[in-house]
């Protein structure tokens, strides 16, 4: 079990994947000048607003990244929802 975990964890934590994720996050700050604490406030408020309409928001799981498009950048928020038993 622990060997399996180790193998699985090593596969999921390739340093190249970590690097890519870190860059995607840090570039949100670099490009739109969103400091980490401002970004946290943004996520918290986003979570509040969405949960007014959709109660099943997982606030700690929200991811905010920046995508560069053809003519403009886009802030992308990924907002996971708890699956309910209904």
């Amino acid at each position, binding site marked *: 079990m622990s060997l399996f975990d180790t193998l699985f964890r090593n596969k999921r934590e*390739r*340093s*190249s*994947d970590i*690097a*890519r994720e*870190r*860059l*995607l996050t*840090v*570039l949100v700050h*670099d*490009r739109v000048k969103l400091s980490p604490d401002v970004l946290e406030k943004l996520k918290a408020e986003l979570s509040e607003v969405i949960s007014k309409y959709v109660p099943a928001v997982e606030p700690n799981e929200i991811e905010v990244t920046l*995508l*560069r*498009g*053809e003519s403009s950048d*886009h802030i*992308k928020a990924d907002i996971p929802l708890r699956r309910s038993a209904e």
Partner: protein
Amino acid sequence: MSRVITITSGKGGVGKTTTTANLGTALAMQGARVAVVDADIGLRNLDVVMGLENRIVYDLVDVIEGRCRLRQALIKDKHFPDLLLLPAAQTRDKDAVTSEDMIELTNQLRKEVDYVLVDSPAGIEAGFRNAIAGADEVLIVTTPEVSAVRDADRIVGLVEAFEKGHPRLILNRLKLRMVNRGEMMSVEDVLQILAIDLIGVVPDDELIVSATNRGEVAVLDRASNAGRAFIEIARRIKGEQVPFMALEENTGVLERFFGMFGRRPRGSER
């Protein structure tokens, strides 16, 4: 129509000067008249990479300040008479030159050659701004490392803000074995982050070091993988459709990427 192409990066040491020297030589090998300009005032390097350091009489600042004519400062390459080097000044700093000076200079060079390649200094200040001032297009060099990519991202924004069109990417010093082990970001990773068009991938190659030691460029060494990559980039600069070369067989990551010349679509998932 002559083209002025600036090679820049943000981060220092990622291979701008090596790229400029090799692309200039490759274009000349393919029959073009080329001027390579060292715009890193105060930190002259293009001359030594090309092995022309003993032939410098005048430099870019001498031309701009009128102490000599442009043709007197241009140095013919050892191998290709149609490849000319305009060296940087070694004893001045970047304030010696303005953007207007660079535009004027590149316009003069347009009359003499088919391609003007400008080797930009590292950074984002006046030296960089001067280097792109006269450019029709910009190539951004980066390595697949965190700080280089972060700096390249900043440069992408600045190039577009200065309205120099969409820059194209040269990914340098790729180590395929490390990519396959997941220890180095792949071409796809870097493209996903920077989201600009790729013009070439240059593998890490020890022959670059020994070539530079000798003042020779890698494109002249048939054994050099990096040299071959630069030759392909030169062909793409000229507008040829060159498929990205197989750096190694069995590369799932690169195979998915082959044939993708364009920008990633807006909003694409990782």
